[in-house]
């Protein structure tokens, strides 16, 4: 595959961006920032994919990861004490081991990249990546495509069961009874099944 020097420069910048942003994820106090650093890392990789002529995958990376990281940030905010990192902190365990493991993984993978030889078989000219992907999905890999749909449906249902407040199935129901706004108070703000909650007749709409 031929490409100009501009592509090389762009790749270099994007590669540095991807790695630095990826590193910053674990080195920032603000959890929200951490998720958006990860987003930056993904976007950089997506841009590299576009440079590699995988135009659909690269762009898909943008919108998929924008949404995923947004959700990630939301959950950060929900679950982390000090989500903005106003107090510096370091919530790590097995720190040394992890650094070593990360380093070793990099060295092994890098060595594999450097010392094994891969067949040079670039993209054929005139290939339309999006079209070929569509063909594949509706052709040979139909089964994968279909099962992915089913798995995602299962995920949807699983997610709803686990996280929904009003889930009908045991575990999720636990603790989902709104305990009221004051300790020991009546349940409050419950939309449907508690019309008289809180002593005065207010209820959420719907």
């Amino acid at each position: 595959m031929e490409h100009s020097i501009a592509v090389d420069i762009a790749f270099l910048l994007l590669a540095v961006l991807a790695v630095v942003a990826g590193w910053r994820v674990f080195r920032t106090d603000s959890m929200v920032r951490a998720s958006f650093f990860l987003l930056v890392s993904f976007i950089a990789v997506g841009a590299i994919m576009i440079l590699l002529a995988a135009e659909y995958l690269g762009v898909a990376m943008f919108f998929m990861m924008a949404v995923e990281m947004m959700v990630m940030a939301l959950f950060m905010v929900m679950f982390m004490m000090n989500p903005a990192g106003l107090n510096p902190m370091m919530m790590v365990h097995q720190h040394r081991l992890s650094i070593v493991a990360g380093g070793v993984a990099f060295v092994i993978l890098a060595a594999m990249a450097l010392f094994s030889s891969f067949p040079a078989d670039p993209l054929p000219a005139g290939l339309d990546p999006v079209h070929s992907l569509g063909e594949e999905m509706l052709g040979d890999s139909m089964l994968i495509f279909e099962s992915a749909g089913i798995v995602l449906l299962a995920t949807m249902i699983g997610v709803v069961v686990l996280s929904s407040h009003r889930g009908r199935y045991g575990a999720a129901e636990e603790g989902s009874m709104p305990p009221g706004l004051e300790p020991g108070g009546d349940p409050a703000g419950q939309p449907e099944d508690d019309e008289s909650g809180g002593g005065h007749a207010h209820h959420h709409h719907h």
Partner: protein
Amino acid sequence: MTLVTLLLLAAALIGIGLYGALSQQSFVMLMMGLELILNGVMLAAVAFWAYSGAGAPEGQLLTIIVMAVMAIEMAMGFALVVAVFRGKQADTTEALSELKQ
């Protein structure tokens, strides 16, 4: 931009991700580590597709599947965290291990 440089970048991302996944106590941060690893994997898949797969559509498909795995991992992970949180009021990985019993 060659296959080797791309793979080196992927390796770096995987390395950082592995560090994060192993070291972070918080479950949400741990997931970020996993995502970073998958980021590297996707990059490697696309790099192979572009440089030594002759544009076989399976390369792209693999990337999409990795992305799907990532989405499922995230959605289920968070749903699980919510469920655990309701009971345990904590989000560290230690709390998750209690769930197994």
